[in-house]
């Protein structure tokens, strides 16, 4: 594998990549929101800071088998299979918050994404609880699909 700097990667990838979704308008001027569907993008926004592709360090939180999982990019250079480390987040909420903070902040791993990570985990956690039936699903008013 070739080591390419993050900035260079972002310049190549920022205008077209398979994960990008543009919503509302077709150009930057007309107020498009550029979203990103990558796994390791915490806010799903297509930008250099949040990009999971154009960074050696990226964080992702997703739901797996009814519980949440934290993904971090390892320092592995070649392999794509060992490129991402998985940390299961099965513990009660407060404990998991500690885990996330330890893995990120205390390791100096993308401290700028700490709040985004906690927010995402919150959302995933609630979604899991609603799916399991532990928490009531938010009722959608009649007429709003």
């Amino acid at each position, binding site marked *: *594998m*070739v080591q*390419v*700097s*993050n*900035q*260079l*990667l972002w*310049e*190549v*990838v920022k205008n*077209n*990549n*398979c*994960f990008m979704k543009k919503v509302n308008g077709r150009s930057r001027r007309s107020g498009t929101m550029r979203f990103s569907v990558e796994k390791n993008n915490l806010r799903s926004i297509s930008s250099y800071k949040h990009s999971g*592709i*154009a960074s050696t360090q990226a964080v992702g939180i997703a739901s797996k088998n009814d519980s949440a999982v934290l993904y971090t990019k390892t320092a592995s250079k*070649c*392999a*794509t*299979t060992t*490129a991402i480390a998985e940390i299961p987040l099965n513990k009660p909420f407060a404990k998991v918050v500690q885990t996330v903070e330890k893995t990120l902040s205390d390791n100096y791993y993308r401290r700028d994404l700490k709040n985004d990570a906690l927010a995402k985990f919150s959302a995933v956690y609630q979604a899991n609880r609603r799916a399991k039936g532990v928490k009531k699903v938010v009722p959608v008013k009649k007429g709003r699909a």
Partner: protein
Amino acid sequence: LTGEKPPPPPLPAVFEAPIRPDIVQFVHTNMNKNNRQAYAVSMKAGKQVSASSWGTGRAVARIPRVGGGGTSRSGQGAFGNMCRGGRMFAPTKTWRKWNRKINTTQKRYAVASALAASAVPALVMARGHKVDEVPEIPLVLDTSLESTKKTSAAKDILASVGALDDVEKAAASKQVRAGKGKMRNRRYTLRRGPLVIYNENDGVAQAFRNLPGVELCCVSRLNLLQLAPGGHMGRFCIWSQAAVEALDTIYGSEGKRIPSASMTNADLARLINSDEIQSVLKPAMCNDKKPLRKKNAIK
């Protein structure tokens, strides 16, 4: 192929070539035009009438009109692009410039760049290939890959290496084309899968070619249109060992020149935070002053 992993050989120098999406895009758009067949309207279309204008004073528009009589065609306007049955505006000609010349050095730069990009997992994933299960990029398989004879064997090889996801994605993406192309012998569209690159064809081409999305290429004849489809770099390439070794002879001191990067270290973050630069910088500006909110914005 047998499942063993030999010690990884040193990466050929091409893979360190500068990644230049602008050059690749330029060369690609021009190379893409070289496959075109001419089309044009007949030279005589719309002109095979002897029509002349009636001039003024007859309460009709001055467009040339078909002479004679006895048929509904007589008196009708002719020759103009606005007339029914007239010649079109700017009739298309066969001598339009269909193909494009590109400087050889530029073509080689683009191929080197595209090869380098195919070695970066991030770019391959961003292009849309499913390479999560692939153990390593660039993916190099044993030379015995070149003597695969059966497509079933080819499929097994790809499966064992994690490349089958990409092939399956291509297979699943087969759709009838939107637009008139479907009636013009371009009925289906398909995503592109992996590009298998070999040194000598001992059956690889025949074995792999029927798998949807898979394309084959010989190292000595690398095609930019395959390495960077759509002008976008980062095709998922599967190399045979012999092909990778051949790269060092094709691109090197005796072969084609590998372009040099204008910046050897492109990592801006490291550069900015390095001691050499930080020691020479002025201290950071402190902008604590928050603009007060003016009660009366006019004064």
